[in-house]
């Protein structure tokens, strides 16, 4: 089975290291999102895969073949650039047929393939239009069609949808996913939009400061974040710093929680998603509950958001409207952290933003 293997890929620019030893195995046909804040190294990593940057270290293999130093034009990967990089002097059809022209294909064949691809991206009949006469969404599709013209082994996209408005972006996410499933092509998308990553990807690769923090399916990344950065970056979470006490319990500000699967001792970090936090009226006793006061509350329609002050720390909780306790801001509450919802993380050296 063909697969792309990143083995300790590293990129340094002088004293700055953009990518620290990225290792990853991407099985054939996977849809992968490289996700992270801007400047995390995700685009550099994608460009190394494309052959547009020379790695400073590590190896890159496809189907067991080492292509670390192969020039970009020999790799036969299709790539969609953030700016789209459509050739302004060519029509939509000529843009798509460009790689065929470079390989010396006959004019008729070029035209046939361009029409096929325009059909594929649902943009028939624009082959003869100059690219400057196309809308943003249409250009997007032309760029995708061009990258797919040679049926590449690998389909790379650098922030492909960032230039589109929100509605169109949503539609294109679905379409891109469907297209990828239809073609079964291994696809790597760089994005800083976690929603985009979560909706499209089979495998989300979360990156920060040049390192891969976690590479896992979207739900796993969400439910089982590998560390505090991932927990905080993907969705919203409550992070609680605690110290393990002797009998399988964690002392946190405002009380003590009893959890399974704790390491024997030392400091830990707990991540609890707001929708997992249960809010109770004050004075009702139960396990894993901490007392606090309601500092702020807002109705989001499908849910109600509570911000509760527990021993000086703000805890966020989301509740269905019908489960909302009768309390006004300033009133006393208690919050429950169900053990199954608490993810135990290694303690952080420094807290990500």
């Amino acid at each position, binding site marked *: 089975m063909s697969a792309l293997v990143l083995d300790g890929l590293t990129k340094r620019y002088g004293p700055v290291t953009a990518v620290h030893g990225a290792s990853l195995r991407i099985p054939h046909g996977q849809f992968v999102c490289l996700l992270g804040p801007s400047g995390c190294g995700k685009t550099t990593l994608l460009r190394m895969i494309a052959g547009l940057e020379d790695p400073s270290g590590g190896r890159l293999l496809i189907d067991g073949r080492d292509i670390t130093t192969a020039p970009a034009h020999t790799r*036969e990967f299709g790539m969609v650039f953030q700016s789209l*990089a459509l050739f302004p002097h060519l029509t939509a059809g000529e843009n798509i047929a460009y*790689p065929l022209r470079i390989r010396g294909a006959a004019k008729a064949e070029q035209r046939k393939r361009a029409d096929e691809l325009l059909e594929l991206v649902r943009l028939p009949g624009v082959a003869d239009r100059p690219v400057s006469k196309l809308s943003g969404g249409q250009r997007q599709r032309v760029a995708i069609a061009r990258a797919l013209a*040679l049926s590449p082994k690998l389909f790379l996209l650098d922030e492909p949808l960032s230039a589109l408005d929100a509605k169109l972006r949503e539609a294109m996410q679905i379409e891109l996913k469907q297209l990828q499933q239809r073609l079964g092509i291994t696809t790597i998308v760089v994005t800083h939009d976690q929603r985009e990553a979560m909706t499209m990807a089979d495998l989300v690769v979360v990156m920060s400061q040049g390192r891969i923090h976690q590479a896992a399916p979207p739900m796993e990344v969400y439910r089982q974040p590998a560390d505090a950065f991932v927990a905080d970056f993907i969705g919203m979470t409550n992070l609680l710093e605690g110290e393990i006490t002797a009998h399988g319990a964690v002392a946190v500000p405002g009380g003590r929680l009893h959890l399974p699967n704790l390491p024997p001792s030392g400091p830990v970090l707990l991540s609890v998603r707001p929708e997992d936090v249960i809010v109770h009226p004050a004075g009702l006793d139960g396990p894993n509950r901490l007392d606090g006061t309601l500092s702020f509350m807002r109705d989001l329609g499908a849910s109600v958001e509570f911000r509760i002050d527990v021993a000086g720390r703000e805890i966020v909780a989301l509740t269905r409207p019908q489960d909302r306790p009768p309390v006004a801001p300033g009133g006393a509450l208690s919050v429950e952290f169900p053990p199954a919802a608490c993810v135990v993380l290694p303690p952080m050296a420094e807290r990500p933003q």
Partner: protein
Amino acid sequence: MIRRAPRGLAEHAPILFPALMLVVFFVIPFSLMIAVSVFRRVPGGFYEPDLVFANYERFLTAFFGGVMSFSLGLAALVAALAVGIAFPFTYRLVRLSRGAQIRWLVFLLSILSLSEVIIGFAWSTLLSRTAGITNLFVALGLMAEPQSLSPSFGALLAGLVYQAFPYTVLVLYPALARLDPYLEEAARTLGSSPLRAFFTVVVPALRNTIVATTIMVFVFALGSYLLPQLLGRPQHWTLSVLITDQAIYQSNMPFAAAMAVFLVLVSLALVGLALLAGRREETA
């Protein structure tokens, strides 16, 4: 801001000054030149107002036709070489770090500040037998004995291209700096080697810029009159050299004016072509 056509003198004021300058520094001198070109030359004197076309008739001979076509051919060759060298150079330049770019641009501007005379002298020394570059070749064992390479067509060409090069780079710079750097990379991911990507994408994408720049350098080279004297042999003297001869040494202003009018008309026709090319780019 409401955009509407300006009304009244006060609102037209901003364009009055440039319009006035254009009239004072171009329209009036050019009209005077056209007028002088049909004046009657007084042999041994200067000229008298008249309406004669003898000056144009004198120009329309095989001799001046030959000089004119040499001048046009030389200017075309200079333009092609200058753009041919400056385009890839500038393409690399805009990708350098900011500091390196500034150093290069300062260097190029300092070449621009050199007078034509200094450039001519420097090149004739560089290409001389006694102090020139062939002595270096001899020292390196590449040549048996030093040779004189100037004056010659090659020396003239080198001097003119050298002089035009900074202008060319500065004119190309903005367009190349604005060009999406990912175009070339896109072409590479689509199977073009870097060289092929340059010629199949970068060059065609900037076709109109290249055409306009070539025409500018062409007109610039057409006006050169000092370097052909310093670096060329008489058969390499351009029409501008002969105009200078007539105007300054022969005091034949009507004839000099007739030749200059012809040269200006050719230049204007080419500027017109450049504008046409620019308009097509806009509609593209």
